């Protein structure tokens, strides 16, 4: 038990370390520049305490349970014995051997994004601002689908060894075309959803998957090809969120 409390305590200290610079900036500007008292000071303080405790618990829980298992699974699924090819086989001839890997990439991308705290925050805010028009679950599912598609395509890229830049630039072009047709109100939110999706939960698991693949597939260098999955995961949600808005607009028009 003391061991549990000790690691929880060190997680708390680490979170305090992360929050301290932010708190210093907020307090500094509030006191020195704005020179105004914070309204509902006690409530805000309680909120910060909740955030601090919440993040510490959250991270400690992930470290303890989900990350070790998730990383182990990523390793096992990308191991040559599981994929069923020996060292000299080339990846392209065994593309179907990676079916489970793609499915794992898709499902882990989707499920970790649903649990991502910063996405929850943005979804709550979007609901408030849009006066309920944007449903938090609709937004979160759209983003999670985007991440899932992105990471699957990203693993495909690692397997085939094609240059990352081609995919990303093609993605940019698609995003710009969609921007032209998407409802004005959603554009800024859609662009934001690219950046918020990948943080605490998604990054460690996805990185483990990328490194596992790049290590085991012949001809891939983990230092070079292991990167890039996060880039996919921050590009595709923009498309799915705009797509979600376009679909809801289309349905609304058909109904009326």
């Amino acid at each position, binding site marked *: 038990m003391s061991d549990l409390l000790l690691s929880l305590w060190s997680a708390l200290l680490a979170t305090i370390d992360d929050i301290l610079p932010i708190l210093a900036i907020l307090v500094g500007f509030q006191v020195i520049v704005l020179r105004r008292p914070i309204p509902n000071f006690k409530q805000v303080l309680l909120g910060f305490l909740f955030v601090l405790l919440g993040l510490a618990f*959250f991270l400690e829980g992930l470290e303890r349970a989900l990350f070790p298992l998730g990383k182990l699974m990523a390793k096992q699924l990308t191991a040559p014995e599981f994929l069923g090819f020996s060292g000299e086989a080339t990846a392209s001839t065994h593309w179907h051997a990676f079916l489970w890997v793609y499915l794992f990439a898709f499902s*882990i991308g989707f499920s970790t994004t649903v649990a991502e705290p910063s996405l929850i925050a943005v979804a709550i805010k979007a609901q408030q*601002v849009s006066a309920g028009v944007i449903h938090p679950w609709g937004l979160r599912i759209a983003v999670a689908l985007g991440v899932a598609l992105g990471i699957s395509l990203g693993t495909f890229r690692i397997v085939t060894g094609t240059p990352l830049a081609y995919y990303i630039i093609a993605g940019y072009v698609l995003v710009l075309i969609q921007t032209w047709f998407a409802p004005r109100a959603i554009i800024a939110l859609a662009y934001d959803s690219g950046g918020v999706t990948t943080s605490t939960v998604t990054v460690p698991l996805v990185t483990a998957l990328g490194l596992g693949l790049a290590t085991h597939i012949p001809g891939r260098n983990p230092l070079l090809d292991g990167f890039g999955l996060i880039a996919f995961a921050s590009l595709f949600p923009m498309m799915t969120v705009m797509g979600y808005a376009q679909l809801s607009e289309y349905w609304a028009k058909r109904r009326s």
Partner: protein
Amino acid sequence: MLLQFFRALLDSLRDLAPILGVIAFFQLVVLGQPIPNLGELLWGVVLVVVGLSLFVQGLKLGLFPIGEGMAWDFAAKGSVLWLLLFAFALGFGTTVAEPALIAIADEAAEVAATGGMIPDHSQAREDYAEGLRYTVALSVGLAIVIGVLRILRGWPIQYLIILGYAGVVLLTPFAPEEIIGIAYDSGGVTTSTITVPLVTALGVGLASSIEGRNPMTDGFGLIAFASLTPIIFVMGYGILL
């Protein structure tokens, strides 16, 4: 209050259920192995659920109100310079100590050393990683400044984003091959769990406090800049060094 927290716990459990399902399915069905340390796993899940619920409550009580409150105060004060300084400090300060960034900067130094871009000893690697971290933090600070300026002036976001994409596309052929993957990834990892709610509240607060701005079309978008500029700056860093 207690009832509310209980509901929040249920919400968090629902948010977490997909991960548990995926892990159980792949471990039991695909890999055909038992789940190791079931007790440890359950204890971890309890911690995650409680943590997520506390975080969401804290968001509504603390982070959102303070972000929006400061946006209103800055608008009332009317000093653009101080607002931009605050925007820069927030972007720079929250990024420079970000653990995900520190991890990726160390990996980048490793790649650079292996690829022969820098001498392969620990001092050179440390310098490279630190330089990269400050570069990214600088770019995020700048991104928030540009984003805040956009809200003040009411510029449409897509033109600025197109400019950013053009920058990425133009720099890519000149950047060392080894750095491209890291540069593209660095855009996604810079915005942390505390930064996102704060920055979002700041943007929405600013857009609501300025007449003629719509919080929906103008208030969002700060995070988008913060995940685009690091790509450009990291490639620039790779080209210059």
